[in-house]
């Protein structure tokens, strides 16, 4: 088939998890604008922003309300029109404390004047991406302009668009493919043009035939003017969509420990991020809202929603009919890598792609196993896409042996959770891995 690429190299490990893509055929609906948004100033990996507005200021949708002079940081824009009511410290779901701008909406959603950015070369393109406020929408929240600002000597030959969406439940990237195929195409063209990348590979899992059709059309449309865009269909298996895995599948290259995709000639972007780039270059409207999947056994009406940044989680749950039973666990993000919330009083961040709630009766997968002794069955190693031996790492961590931990590749761990998922002894292996990493970091500081 024209434009379809077979994965070059099969990744090791991983786990087969039920997909639970219940909301796949649910179009994204815009949530009614909340009365109040709390826009945190820490929205990305890297430096937080400082508010550029003061209490009492009137703002429109898209007005800049936070910025930073640090390099690894992206500006933040108001997601509603109204008045800045308060600037205060809040606690984020991660437990971190961040400054936040609380804006009272006037309900009009009046937009600022957007003009498409003037983009003519790499430099102006990177600048435009920075001014769009884009951070990785796949969940990591890494400022896009930093990712796209490649080192001078880097030889980048491949742009990989990640539409794998391998985490269970989440369907927003899938919806992005179905609803905004043209934006994806424009984003792809822009990034390839201004970064001078000759080859584009769109990676998608084979459990999304409709998305594959759309993406193939994109590849075909583009191939009329050259043979640049290919689509790569991956067998659906968690964590195929992880950056390192997807680069390996697409190019056969492996990122060495501690290195970046650019070190192996690749740039990887989430499909929603690339679609946003396409939209932004057309309209000049910065990142003020994002799509989220709201699902799980405790949610009355599972939905895909478009949410203004800063909307409170409980408002989103209310919009989805509230809980149909008492939730036992609420997760922000996917069930494999997401974060369990201690409540609902948290604001939406740019990187949040899902809000899931599960009941206690969810005896299936959620039920926590009783922790028993490790029997060295090796299932953690078998499922580790990075080829680590988590059970050994646990042992070294108990002995606080930083040298052995480093040698065992602890820092390569991406915390995908495959090991803990498959452990028959119910060990919280990801937690152990985090502990192991902190032991190494401590030893390095000393």
């Amino acid at each position, binding site marked *: 088939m024209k434009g379809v690429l077979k994965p070059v190299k099969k990744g090791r490990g991983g786990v087969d998890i039920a997909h639970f893509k219940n909301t796949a055929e649910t179009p994204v609906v815009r949530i009614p604008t909340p009365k109040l948004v709390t826009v945190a100033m820490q929205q990305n990996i890297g430096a937080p922003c400082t508010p550029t507005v003061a209490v009492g200021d009137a703002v429109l949708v898209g007005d800049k309300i936070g910025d930073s002079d640090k390099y690894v940081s992206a500006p933040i824009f108001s997601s509603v029109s109204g008045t800045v009511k308060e600037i205060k410290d809040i606690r984020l779901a991660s437990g971190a404390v961040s400054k936040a701008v609380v804006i009272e909406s006037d309900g009009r959603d009046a937009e600022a004047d957007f003009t498409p950015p003037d983009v003519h070369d790499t430099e102006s393109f990177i600048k435009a991406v920075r001014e769009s406020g884009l951070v990785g929408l796949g969940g990591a929240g890494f400022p896009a302009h930093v990712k796209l600002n490649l080192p001078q000597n880097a030889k980048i030959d491949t742009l990989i668009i990640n539409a794998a969406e391998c985490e269970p439940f989440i369907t927003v990237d899938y919806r992005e493919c179905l609803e905004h195929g043209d934006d994806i195409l424009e984003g792809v063209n822009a990034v390839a043009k201004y970064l001078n990348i000759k080859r584009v590979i769109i990676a998608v899992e084979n459990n999304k035939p409709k998305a594959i059709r759309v993406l193939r059309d994109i590849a075909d449309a583009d191939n009329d003017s050259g043979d640049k865009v290919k689509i790569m269909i991956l067998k659906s298996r968690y964590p195929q969509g992880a950056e*390192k895995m997807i680069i390996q599948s697409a190019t056969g290259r*492996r*990122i*060495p*420990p501690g*290195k970046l995709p650019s070190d192996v000639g690749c740039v990887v972007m989430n499909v929603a991020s690339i679609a946003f780039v396409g939209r932004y270059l057309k309209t000049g409207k910065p990142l003020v809202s994002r799509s989220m999947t709201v699902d799980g056994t405790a949610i009355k009406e599972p939905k895909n929603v478009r949410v203004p940044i800063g909307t409170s989680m409980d408002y989103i749950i209310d919009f989805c009919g509230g809980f149909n039973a*008492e*939730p*036992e*666990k*609420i*997760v922000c993000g996917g*069930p*494999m*890598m*997401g*974060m*369990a*919330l*201690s*409540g*609902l*009083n948290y604001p939406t961040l740019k990187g949040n792609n899902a809000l899931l709630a*599960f009941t206690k009766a969810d005896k299936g*997968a*959620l*039920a*926590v*196993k009783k922790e*028993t*002794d490790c*029997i*060295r*069955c*090796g*299932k953690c*190693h*078998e499922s580790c*896409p*990075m*080829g*680590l*031996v988590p059970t*050994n790492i646990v042992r070294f961590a108990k002995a606080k042996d930083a040298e052995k931990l480093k040698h*065992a*590749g602890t820092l*390569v761990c991406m*915390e995908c*959770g495959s090991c*803990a*998922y*498959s*452990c*028959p*002894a*119910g060990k*919280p292996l*990801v*937690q152990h891995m*985090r502990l192991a990493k902190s032991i190494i970091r401590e030893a390095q500081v000393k």
Partner: protein
Amino acid sequence: MSELQQKLTVSASPHFRSRQTTSGIMLDVIVALVPSLVASYIIFGVRTLVLSSVSVISCVAFEYFSRRIMKRHNTIGDLSAIVTGLLLAFNVPASMPVWTVIIGDFFAIVIAKQFFGGIGQNFVNPALIGRIVLMSSFPSKMGSFPEPLVSTVPITSATPLVLLKSGEMPAESLLGMFFGLRGGCLGEVCTAALLIGFVYLLVRRVISWHIPVTYMGTVAVIMLIAGKGDFEYVLYELMAGGLVLGAVFMATDYTTSPVSKRGKIIYAAGCGIITSLIRIFGNLPEGVSFSIIIMNILVPHIEHMATPKPFGTPKKSKEAEDK
């Protein structure tokens, strides 16, 4: 809100877990042993059930009381003591006196397993230690087997392995060997039943093919050379003694085998080589137990050699670092 907060579970990711548990795995192993138990009952009669149940009960009791005395938490719920009990019973002749089996159970559970910290910590296979203790303590009782389907009185006539060693072909037909009509220990005689168990373990993903296939394959290759290309001889060697039982159920013990695929292959090949060497050159007719125990001891070294390097580790710099 605060009410909700108190009720929510907050824990580290992942929030989903597979349903597989340790006791579930052990239960699968027990299920996989059932065909052999049934076959053994048909072949050796009620002695099979007596020895197996005594062995299982003793192992569970030893596990329970030894852990209690050592003030450790109770682990009989993980069912691993039942597996050990069954396997040890499978490793003795039907004519073995009951009290001797209890001694074997003691060494298996208390000495080999609990003294080293219990499940997951023992460095040699407990059931095999039990068997070796019995072999060295009661060599004549462990070395004479009742005739299948006939009586429970042990006869001292040569087993297929002994005949093979002296260069003769066994009297049993290959088909008879396959279905277990030969002298031997309780659980080792019926190859057919053991293979059913093997397939079950593979299907349930309790074990992978690496250890059993490499182990038996290595023995087959060596025996093919030793037998100068005689395939009949190779088939007799494969089905005689405890090779299938050892390769499928004993060498694959998680705790005492390597975790990586490469390690598993090295380990199993080692088992196969030692088994063949003992069978061809050794004084004993059978070498499965000793070969597995020896390779058990080497597992840490094999792991050190064979564990794959973390994702993306460049080959060169790693060597430099090791130096």
